[in-house]
């Protein structure tokens, strides 16, 4: 009960502090003193504290199963394990927006702490832009999605959390993803401030790079966690479905990745200033769009949860305000005063970065059009369509070939002007990649030409980055590791895609099913009871052609609240291959629907994303000499 009130009033106080902060900041802006008014940092800290208090009081309500709170009532249940009571806090719309706010206020506080060496006016403007976003979100939470609504009479029991969200990967997926999404807000505010102050420079690049890296790392890991979850929880055995909800997280990632590379160019060469600003604005806009599309119910996605259109309209208006504001700032204040403009030599590192930037923009537009076009068509002609994976594969995969080649060659080039030297090693690696690919492809039944090219390009990047490690030229280890990770990612996705096999059948207990690569034996089932679900555990034996036996135990869970059936896949992971089995039961039927998949190199997909993150982390801690 008290937690509810404390949470609500803390939010209002937090909003008031926003206005107070803006007033003080504007006053301080015109003062002659060089240092930032100490009070501003203190006030930011207080605002953060209020949001934290509010957030924790919501967590407390969830832990205590306080059903006088509507959010708790809608999303929790007394029999749910403690861990999922807590993660239920951000597993719903209201709570997840509160988390947005928390990260927004946390980032501006950290930014002010860490930017002591930066000009005062720039810091104040960053604060102001960030506060505009924060005020927007405060109003959004308080008016359309208050997490502290009262319910009276107080219900005895809650409605429970959607069981498929009761999962460790999904418990930490939203906070991590939000750190990435919202991290883009600081980049957005800071670059607008820098434009207004005409401060887009090498020093600025060096300072903002850390923030770009932080949100890039979290966004990468966040997307991966969601992907891992989809892989084992949704029971399709895939890790990426080109579903609109997945796409909206990929779009800011693409533009953030492009930004990360441009910042490096800006840092060295003091050029591409407008492009950096445009990318900063794009990234944050896409993050906001992501929230809007997921929360408004506009997207027709397999991940869609029931939701409310009124919220969508608020975010949409807010989004427009931000876009107009940022474009206004950009066009009024931006001066292209850098010396090196249009001074790109065709063979240099910055040129290759720029080319790959264009490729990334192309990938981004493909994903954007594929995601938005169905909505657009629905509005103008009320025709219902969906865009499937073939669209994305067809448009993205061919362009990955030059993209990978530039990724391998670019870092080998010098800044400003590079020469074509006799680099035998590169040519040798290139030939090795092609030969290796040729022998691999020969043994497979796939589209020879296309896959040979794509695989060769991926191997080429793989070997060139590997060679960097071996020759111990680790002067740019973060880039090498990240690029190595990316080549590994593409390789494992390709091999996974080509070599995966699947068997789907309906089986009764005690039956055996023979297929091309072995035999499935459905031994028995057992029943088990947990606090919030009953489960049927099945025991399967998979025998391969050599006679090796693997036991797999998939589950069907019947949750009590909400009453819902879920399938839990059982996966045996080895370095070479994942064996994946999942089963379903159709009501009133003796047949179990069994899906068995063999997914080679699955674990390497996750490992390579970790390598990407590791590369980013090293870049974060390394100070350039």
């Amino acid at each position, binding site marked *: 009960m008290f937690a509810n009130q404390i949470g609500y009033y803390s939010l209002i106080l937090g909003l008031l502090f926003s206005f107070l902060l803006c007033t003080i900041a504007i006053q301080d802006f015109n003062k002659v003193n060089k240092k930032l008014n100490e009070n501003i940092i203190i006030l930011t800290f207080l605002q953060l504290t209020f949001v934290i208090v509010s957030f924790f009081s919501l967590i407390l309500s969830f832990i205590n199963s306080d059903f006088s709170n509507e959010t708790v009532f809608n999303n929790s249940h007394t029999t749910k394990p403690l861990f999922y009571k807590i993660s239920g806090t951000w597993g719903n719309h209201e709570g997840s927006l509160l988390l947005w706010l928390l990260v927004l206020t946390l980032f501006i506080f950290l930014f002010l702490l860490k930017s002591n060496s930066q000009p005062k006016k720039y810091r104040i403007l960053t604060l102001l832009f960030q506060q505009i976003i924060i005020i927007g979100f405060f109003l959004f939470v308080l008016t359309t999605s208050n997490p502290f609504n009262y319910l009276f009479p107080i219900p005895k029991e809650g409605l429970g959390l959607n069981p498929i969200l009761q999962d460790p990967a999904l418990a930490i997926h939203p906070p991590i993803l939000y750190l990435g999404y919202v991290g883009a807000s600081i980049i957005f505010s800071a670059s607008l401030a820098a434009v207004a102050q005409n401060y887009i420079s090498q020093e600025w690049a060096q300072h903002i790079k850390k923030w770009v890296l932080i949100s890039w790392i979290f966004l990468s890991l966040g997307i991966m966690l969601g992907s891992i979850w989809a892989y084992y929880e949704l*029971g399709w055995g895939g890790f990426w479905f080109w579903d609109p909800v997945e796409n909206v997280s990929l779009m800011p990632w693409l533009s953030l990745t492009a930004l990360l590379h441009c910042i490096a160019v800006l840092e060295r060469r003091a050029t591409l200033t407008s492009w950096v600003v445009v990318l900063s604005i794009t990234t944050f806009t896409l993050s906001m769009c992501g929230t809007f599309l997921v929360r408004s119910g506009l997207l*027709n996605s*397999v991940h*869609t949860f029931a939701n409310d259109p009124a919220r969508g309209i608020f975010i949409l208006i807010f989004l427009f305000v931000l876009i107009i504001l940022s474009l206004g700032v950009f066009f009024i204040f931006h001066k292209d005063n850098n010396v090196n403009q249009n001074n790109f030599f065709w063979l240099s590192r910055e040129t290759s970065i720029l080319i790959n930037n264009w490729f990334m923009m192309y990938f981004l537009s493909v994903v954007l059009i594929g995601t938005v076009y169905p909505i657009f068509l629905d509005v103008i002609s009320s025709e219902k369509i*969906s865009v499937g994976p073939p*669209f994305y594969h067809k448009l993205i995969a061919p362009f990955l070939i030059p993209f990978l080649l530039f990724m391998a060659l670019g870092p080998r080039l010098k800044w400003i002007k590079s020469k074509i030297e006799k680099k035998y090693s590169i040519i040798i690696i290139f030939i090795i990649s092609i030969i290796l690919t040729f022998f691999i492809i020969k043994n497979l039944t796939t589209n020879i030409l296309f896959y040979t090219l794509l695989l060769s390009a991926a191997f080429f990047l793989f070997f060139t980055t590997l060679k960097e490690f071996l020759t111990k030229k680790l002067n740019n280890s973060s880039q090498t590791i990240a690029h190595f990770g990316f080549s590994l990612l593409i390789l494992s996705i390709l091999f996974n895609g080509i070599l995966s096999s699947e068997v789907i059948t309906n089986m009764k207990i005690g039956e055996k099913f023979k297929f091309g690569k072995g035999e499935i034996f459905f031994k028995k089932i057992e029943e088990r009871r947990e606090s919030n679900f009953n489960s049927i555990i099945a025991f399967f034996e998979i025998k391969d052609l050599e006679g090796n036996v693997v036991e797999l135990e998939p589950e069907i869970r019947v949750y009590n609240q909400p009453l*819902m059936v879920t399938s839990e896949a059982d996966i045996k992971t080895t370095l070479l291959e994942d064996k994946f089995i999942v089963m379903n039961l159709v*009501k009133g*039927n003796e*047949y179990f629907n069994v899906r068995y998949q063999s997914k080679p190199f699955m674990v390497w997909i996750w490992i390579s994303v970790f390598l990407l993150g590791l590369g980013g982390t090293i870049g974060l801690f390394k100070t350039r000499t």
Partner: protein
Amino acid sequence: MYGKKVKLRFLFLVLLLATVILTVFLILQSLKENVIYFQSPSEINSLIEIESKKIRVGGMVKEKSVVINSNKVNFIITDFKNEINVTYSGAVPNLFAEGKGVVAEGFLKDKNYFSATKILAKHDENYMPPEVKEALGVK
């Protein structure tokens, strides 16, 4: 007449414009080939010719229509005006049940017979796909 810099910039702009137009054209072209249309049983019933394109059909799974044997699942999708027989060999999602909304993806054999290649899963038992809602006339 114009300086070298202006000419270069102009060339750059033309190239940029050409690339953008080409990209958009490319994307829209393959979009046309790869979109999947959604149709309700009534819409299918009023079709004049059966196309061989992949489509989605949505509606309710008719009560007592699900028949399962060792390699196939057969059921009927209805929008309470018209219905269509669906046959499917694959894994059905957990939220698939009689009397619940469903979206099936696959090919039309004729007006009464649909061969599904995929049954789409939903995350939320209260959630009904917007198309299904519309097909059923629920507001």
